[in-house]
C-alpha cells in the first residue's frame, strides 16, 4: 500500500513536471536582446496596439452589421417566403442556421480577442516584457481564429447561394411537371 502511494506521488510529480515544461518554454522564449527591445519600445508598441484595437473594433462593427443583415434581411426572409408558400425550405433554413451559429462564434471570438488585446495593453511592458509578449502572442492567435471565422462565413454565404440555385432548378422542374 505504501509503495502504491509512493508510485502515485511519483506519477503526479511527473505529470506536473511535464505540464510545467511548455509553460516554462513559452514564457522564456524571449532573449535578453528582445526583452530590451520591448522595454525600449514599450510606449510605441502600446500606441500601435491601441490603434489596432480601434481599427479592429471599427471593422467588427461594420462587418458585423453586414453579416447580420445577410441573415436577418435576406436569408431568413427568403426562407419565410418559401414557407409561407408551402415550399420545402428545410435545406436553406438549415444553412441559415449554420450561418447564424458561425456568426455567434465570430462574435464570441472577437469578444475574446478584444479582451485579450485590452489586457495586453494594460500590462506594463517596461516592467514585465515577458508577460506582455505572452499576452500579445495570445491575442495574435485569437485574431487568426477570427480570420478563420470570417472565411467560413464567406464559404457559407456561397453555399447558401448554391442551394438557392439548386432550389430554383428543382422548382422549375416541379413547375413544368
Amino acid at each position, binding site marked *: 500500500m505504501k509503495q502504491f502511494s509512493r508510485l502515485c506521488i511519483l506519477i503526479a510529480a511527473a505529470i506536473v513536471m511535464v505540464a510545467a515544461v511548455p509553460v516554462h518554454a513559452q514564457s522564456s522564449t524571449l532573449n535578453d536582446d*528582445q526583452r530590451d*527591445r520591448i522595454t525600449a519600445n514599450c510606449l*510605441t508598441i502600446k500606441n500601435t496596439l491601441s490603434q489596432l484595437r480601434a481599427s479592429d*473594433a471599427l471593422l467588427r462593427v461594420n*462587418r458585423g*452589421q*453586414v453579416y447580420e443583415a445577410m441573415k436577418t434581411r*435576406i436569408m431568413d426572409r427568403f426562407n419565410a417566403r418559401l414557407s409561407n408558400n408551402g415550399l420545402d425550405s428545410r435545406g436553406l433554413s438549415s444553412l441559415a442556421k449554420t450561418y447564424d451559429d458561425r456568426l455567434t462564434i465570430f462574435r464570441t471570438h472577437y469578444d475574446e480577442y478584444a479582451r485579450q488585446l485590452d489586457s495586453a495593453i494594460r500590462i506594463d511592458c517596461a516592467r514585465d516584457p515577458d508577460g506582455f509578449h505572452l499576452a500579445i502572442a495570445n491575442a*495574435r492567435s485569437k485574431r487568426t481564429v477570427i*480570420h478563420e471565422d470570417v472565411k467560413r462565413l464567406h464559404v457559407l454565404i456561397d453555399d447558401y447561394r448554391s442551394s438557392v440555385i439548386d432550389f430554383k432548378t428543382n422548382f422549375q422542374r416541379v413547375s413544368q411537371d
Partner: protein
Amino acid sequence: MPNDEDIIPATKPESFWRDHRFLLLIIVTVIISIGLVSVSLFIYNVSGSAQLDLSRPGFQSVSSKVERNKQTQEFSTTGTVTTETIDDFVKQYDEQASRAKAVDAFNGDPLNPDALEFTDISANP
C-alpha cells in the same frame, strides 16, 4: 386612566430617523442607484457591448467611420414564389454577398512580434 408607567418616551434611534427622514431617503436612493449602476456596468462588460462601444475613450477617431447609410433592402416575406421571384432574390443576394465578401476582415498579421515588438524603432528614421 393610564398611569405614568404606561407613557414611555420614544427611543432615541427611532426618533433620530423619524426626524431625518429626508436624509434617509437620500441615502437609500444613492445606495439603490449605486447598485443599479453596478449591475448595468457588469452587464455592459460581460455582454460584450463594451467591446463594440466606439464612444469609449481611444475609439473616437474611428467612431465617425461607422457605415450608417448602407441599409440593406429587406426581401419581402409575402407574395407568391415564381422563377422571377427567385431571380430577383438571387440578384439582391449577390449584391449583399459582394458587400459581405468585399473585405477579407482580420487578415494579415499585425501582431507578429518581429514587426511589432522586436523592430528597432530607433534604427528607422
